Each structure stands twice: as C-alpha cells, then as structure tokens.
C-alpha cells in the first residue's frame, strides 16, 4: 500500500498544495516552521481521521480560513480516494471513493501508518492514560471488536459513575440497580484485559528485539502489563470496592486503571532512563507497532519519520537506514531541516527517493 498523491486546502499553514509521491522514499526538506511536520499531519489525517498533534479540529484550519480539506489517493490493489473536510461549527466529513462513512471510526485501520517523532517521549514520561491510549490505538486498528468492547466499557463506566454520584447525593443505595452495571462492567473488563494481556505477550518480544538492535544490545528492556484484573479473585475485589466507589462517587477499580510499565535493566525507564534510552525505547515501540500492523494487515503501513536526523545520534540513524536499505519498510516520509544532509544520507540508497523542498 502507498499514498500516491495528496491535496490540501487551508490545512494549517498551507492555503493550497498538491503533491505526487514516490511509492518508496519521500523527503520533505526546508527550514523550521516551513510546514514539513504539518504535511506529515495531513497524511496522518488521511489514515487516522484526526491530527497527530491537536485534539481540537479547529486548530488544524489555516488562520482565519472557514474550513480545511485534505484529499489523497491510496493504492492498495485498487485506488482508494480519501476525502476529509472540516468546517468550523460543523461535523467533520470523511469519504471513501466519494461515499461518506456512516461512522468515521470504520475508516481507522484500513490505511495504517506509524509516525515516529523521537522527541515525543510523553508516552514514556507522562501518566498511564497516554500509555493506555497508545496500546488501545494499536489494538483498535487490528481488532475492531476490541474498539467496540472498549467503547461499550467506557459507556457502562459513565453510567455506573453517574449512578454512584446519585446514590451519594440522594443518600440512598439500591443494590438491584447497581448489579446490572457490575455484571456488564466486569464482563467487558475481562474481555479487554484478556486482549491487552495477549497483545503484550506478542508485542513485548518485538520491542526487545528492536531495542537490542538500535542500542547494540547493551541494556535489557522489559514491557510489563499491570492490571488489577490480574489478581486471582478480582471479581470479589471489585465487589469489596463498592463502599469505596460510593465514597469517591466513581468506579475506583477496573481496566480504566491499567498501566504498562517500561523497564530497563530492571529499573523504571520513566524514572531512571536517560533521554537517549527513552528515545531508543520509543523507536523500538514504534517499530514493534509497525511489525504488528504489517503482520495483521498483510501489507506494510506507511512510515513517517519526523525530524529524526536532528534528534537521534548517528549510530541510531545508521540502524534505521540499514532497515530502510534492507527493504524492511514500505513507503517512507522523512522530514529534515537540512537539504544537504538528506541528499548525503539517501545518496547511496537503492530506492527511488523524491525530495520536496519547502
């Protein structure tokens, strides 16, 4: 699969842009602030239906413009034309071959991509929510049933929390009314737990392999899934917690509290890892993500590398270039602020390299 072309209107700093891509390596070179990363974000839109950087759609529209539009054509056996537009105050429109999706979420996973922005180590350093989101996003792309189960879980959770609030504000308790929420929540939590657990079982060796390759195998890394559902009698624990739930007016235990811990030589990577180790680990996570997508989809996802030549040392860059040369990846998009460096790096690569100057 590859992206053949893209066309933008009013997308971030672009008023209008039309580009045709190489099916192999594409380099966006230009000064900082010229819009290279914005272009990667536009590609992210076509794949994931949203920005990689902004939670609010409005921020994607060029200043003072009324709307934005992104179109692109993926080649995956056949041609797939993807259209996305957003006008402030209205719903986002997403079309596949001119036909609007009934639910935009149906699109996710069909044209996968992996974005590596080495500075973005938030998933390692920040709270557990970002890690859950990282793994949920991968799982949702390879397993639509997972996405549905997760959405239902969150819905039941919201209803249960509202009920807890009502119980505590109106000072009463109805065991029969709470029970259906307990049963449904536990059932969905168990399903999510099983899927996350077996996914980490599969994902962890891939991360280790990539980390060893990137860092020359100096440190041992480990990826641990931590969930209260792992305890032997979780259901009993959950029921015991009802008193606490009533006091806190929310559900205090469940898969929405899960975390994924990253370890380096048996210590927490978050607390003791150096910046370089954290970057290497992030890249290993992303490459493992790439592997999983490739295996499940049967084709290679797009790979977007944002500013890696500035942010990584030569050794790690060398490892990535080896992988590119060995045809590990499919279509590639790379940004760099220095054109001469890019041409030097890709000069000897046995691939079709197209350079776009900004």
């Amino acid at each position: 699969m590859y992206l053949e072309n893209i066309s933008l209107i009013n997308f971030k700093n672009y008023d209008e842009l039309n580009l045709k891509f190489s099916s192999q390596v594409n380099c966006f070179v230009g000064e900082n602030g010229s819009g290279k990363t914005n272009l990667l974000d536009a590609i992210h839109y076509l794949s994931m239906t949203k920005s990689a950087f902004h939670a609010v759609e409005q921020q994607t529209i060029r200043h003072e413009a009324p709307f934005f539009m992104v179109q692109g054509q993926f080649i995956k056996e056949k041609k797939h034309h993807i259209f996305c537009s957003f006008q402030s105050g209205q719903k986002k429109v997403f079309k596949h071959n001119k036909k609007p999706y009934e639910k935009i979420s149906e699109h996710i996973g069909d044209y996968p991509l992996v974005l590596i922005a080495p500075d973005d180590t938030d998933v390692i350093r920040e709270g557990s929510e970002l890690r859950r989101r990282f793994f949920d996003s991968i799982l949702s792309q390879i397993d639509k049933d997972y996405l549905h189960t997760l959405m239902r879980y969150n819905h039941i959770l919201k209803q249960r929390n509202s009920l807890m609030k009502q119980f505590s504000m109106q000072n009463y308790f109805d065991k029969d009314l709470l029970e259906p929420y307990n049963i449904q929540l536990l059932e969905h939590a168990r399903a999510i737990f099983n899927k996350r657990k077996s996914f980490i079982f599969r994902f962890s060796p891939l991360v280790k392999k990539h980390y060893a390759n990137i860092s020359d195998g100096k440190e041992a890394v480990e990826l641990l899934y931590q969930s209260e559902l792992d305890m032997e009698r979780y259901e009993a624990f959950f029921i015991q917690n009802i008193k606490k739930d009533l006091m806190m007016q929310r559900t205090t235990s469940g898969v929405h509290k899960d975390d994924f811990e990253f370890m380096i030589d048996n210590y927490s990577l978050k607390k003791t890892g150096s910046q370089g180790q954290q970057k290497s680990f992030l890249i290993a996570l992303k490459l493992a993500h790439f592997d999983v997508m490739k295996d499940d989809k049967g084709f290679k996802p797009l790979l977007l590398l944002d500013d890696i030549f500035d942010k990584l040392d030569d050794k790690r860059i060398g490892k990535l270039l080896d992988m590119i040369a060995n045809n590990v990846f499919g279509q590639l998009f790379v940004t760099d602020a220095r054109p001469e460096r890019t041409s030097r790096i890709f000069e000897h690569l046995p691939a079709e390299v197209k350079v776009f100057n900004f």
Partner: protein
Amino acid sequence: MQFASKLIEEAVTEISRLPGIGKKTALRLVLFLLKEEKAITQALSHALQNMRENIRYCDVCHNISDTPICTICTGHRRDQSIICVVEDIPDILAIENTAQYNGLYHVLGGIISPMEGMGPGELNIESLVNRIATANPAVQEIIFALSPTMEGDTTAFYLTKKLKAFALKTSTIARGIPIGGELEYTDEITLGRSILSRIAYDGK
C-alpha cells in the same frame, strides 16, 4: 425572520416548537391556514385542545386512552396472562402493527439511564409489580421488548430482580439479522451475536 404582523410571528413561533418543524415550514403552514376558510383553523385548534384536555393514560398499562382503562386492557380476545413491557407508547403501535401479539402491554415511560437522570423511580415499575401481584387471572409470562442497548439490558435485568418473587416466565425479544436483509451489510456486532445465538435448523 421579519414578519409584517405580530400575530403571524406569534403563530409561527408556536408552530415551530413542534419536532421536525423549522421557521420556514411553520410560516408555510400559517400562510396556508390564512388562505383557507376560518373553519379549518377552528377545527384544527379545537381538535388539538380537545385532544390535550381530554386524553388520558390507561390506569393499568399507561398506554394512551380515551377511557380510564384502554381498549387493549379491556379487550375480550386479549390474552390476559402475558404482558409485554415496552419503553414508550410508539413501541405499542409498532408491535400491534405486526399482528403477531395478542397479550397485554405495560409502558415504562422511559428506560434506566443514570446519566440522563432516569432512575427506576421515574418509571412505571411499581405499577407493574402491583399489577402482577393483583392480576386475576394470574400473569404467566413477561416479555421485555426493550431497545437492544446497554440501557435496555440494564432495565430488563432490574425488572427481573423486582419480579423474582412471582413465578413468571420471562423472555426478551430476539436480536439478529433483519428479514430480507443482506448478510454482508449487517453490522459485525449483530452478525456476531446472531452466530452465537443461532437457532437449530429443522428443515421446515
């Protein structure tokens, strides 16, 4: 919208309160009434007022009724031993139109959803329990015809708990592929569930 007449503006505002009617449609209706004979407007407002003043809900099943007890509850040919529990009045019309059901109904008037402030206290649950406790002849079976959502399931579960004391047969309407529907266009959840709760095929 600017109107030449305050009277027209008032009428348009009132009519556009109705669901599915915007200002433009409301204006069209008002101008229609203005053009026609006065009697039409009088008949309309009289019918509406009469409906609003005199309509009542069945004391037993909470369906719309002209009399204290509705025609379904008093129907001689109706099977008194079976009650179908529905969320709201339009559900009764839908089930009646199938002509496949000959029992009684019970309108809950909503569905349990704490997020929207709908608890069991807001629904006609107590009257259902009382009704079953005092029914003569006795009720044998309860059918839950509720939406196949998490809220519908919760409501059915809660009701089952409340009705546990009575020896009742309880069931919920089947979920699955629509008749005449195409398999490949059925959503994955429905199809998955249909496979899990498949029906033995006896070749008839």
